[in-house]
């Protein structure tokens, strides 16, 4: 199993959710984060001075899926979260070794 962590623009959440659901991925966990990429955030001009707004609000989505679903999820997120401008976000994939359902008592180990 893998955990796919996507950090996206808040305004793209709806699109991402919809497109994932279409592909059959409903389950997910989201929360508000702030972040900056290598660009150190957004640069506003203010009376000739640079004024960098770092730590822009983003939404982090965590989705745990089977190994062979990783590519589909990545592509779906990428397509639906993209605007082409700085700040579109990143996707990280990391290993998950055990998944337990609290109610179902289902226990998947890899």
């Amino acid at each position: 199993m893998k955990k796919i962590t996507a950090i996206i623009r808040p305004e793209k959440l709806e699109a991402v959710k919809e497109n994932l659901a279409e592909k059959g991925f409903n389950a997910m966990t989201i929360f508000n984060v702030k972040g900056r990429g290598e660009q150190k955030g957004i640069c506003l001009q203010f009376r000739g001075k640079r004024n960098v707004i770092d730590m822009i609000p983003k939404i982090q989505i965590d989705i745990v899926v089977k190994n062979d679903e990783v590519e589909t999820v990545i592509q779906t997120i990428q397509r639906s979260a993209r605007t082409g401008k700085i700040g579109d976000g990143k996707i990280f994939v990391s290993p998950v070794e055990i998944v337990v359902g609290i109610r179902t008592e289902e226990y998947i180990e890899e």
Partner: protein
Amino acid sequence: MVLEAGDTAFVLICTAMVMLMTPAVGLFYGGMVRNKNIISMIALSFISLAIVTIQWVTIGYTLSFGHDIGGLIGGLDYIGLKGVGMDGDGIPDMLFMAFQLVFAAIALAILTSGVAERIKLSSFIVFGLLWTTLVYDPLAHWAWGGGWAESMGALDFAGGTVVHISSGFGALALSLVIGKRIGFGKYSMEPENITTTLLGGALLWFGWFAFNAGSALAANGLAANAFVVTLISAASGALTWMGASWIKGKPSSLGMISGAIAGLVGITPACGFVGPLAAIVIGGSAGLLCYGTLLFRIHKKLDESLDAWAIHGVGGLFGALATGVFAVAAIGGVDGLIYGNVGQFIIQGIDAFVAVGYSFVMTYILAKIIDKTIGLRVTEEEEYVGLDVAQHGESMEL
């Protein structure tokens, strides 16, 4: 020319209450924008109050209430409050001036909602001063300062035309000039802080009693009538808007409070002329009509962002006409359409539509001029990070 302590007490407190409505407008709208713009939204209301105060005491009051020049504008008699003293007829002249001041301030504050989340602060200040001087002051003069509308016999007890049509249609014009918010219609811009909006709504409702009843300028039976119909109309508007939206889906608290505001706007010009049962009808109709206008606005994909047009503009227009329909001589000395006075209804119509036209066109022109010169709108990046950070260097810790 003697002062009446009871009347003076009443209008003093009413003036303070109407002043409170200006920050209340800020809270009301602040709760409806995205969290990154809430400080900006509230600050714009305070700033409206501050700049209008200085404008009014220097030039605005005399333009509105100086001796009439051709029915169009007041002369400069009271420039810098010259000759506005502590005496007066019933209430001190100074107090009348202050009561009028806070009306001018709130009109500008309402207008800010049309450009929510994208207006440049410096440009707003310039625009605000021009707008108050060239749009609000003439309208105030026409209706209350001895201008043509007053001479013609148009009725506007507490500012349906002067405050609500001007700010509502002004907001529409302004929103057309400044353009839609980035992403409008593409992604969700749901209100993010509804309790703040409800708090603002509560303070508006509270202040509105002073706005309407205070316009009697005396603590008497007429003030009591205005008070009662204000309360009824608000309740009625809240219930019809809530009811209508319930049919379509869930009854939101935002619909409920918007309906109350619609009812309050609708009764504003009428409150010194109509009775309690008419108030149920006026408030209820205003709720339905403004809700319909809001749906129309959304359907037309207009980003008149927080519905000042639907509620204040259309509600104020409706109220002006309804005054001509429901007025009853026993209350305010004039009968309306349903009591056979067709003339009054026509007068109301002329007054209201001239106000609609004037405020829309003038605001549009002013906005265009500002936009072409110093620019009305923040940059795309500033809009993206939000005006709190971009314009004020502040943010909420959430």
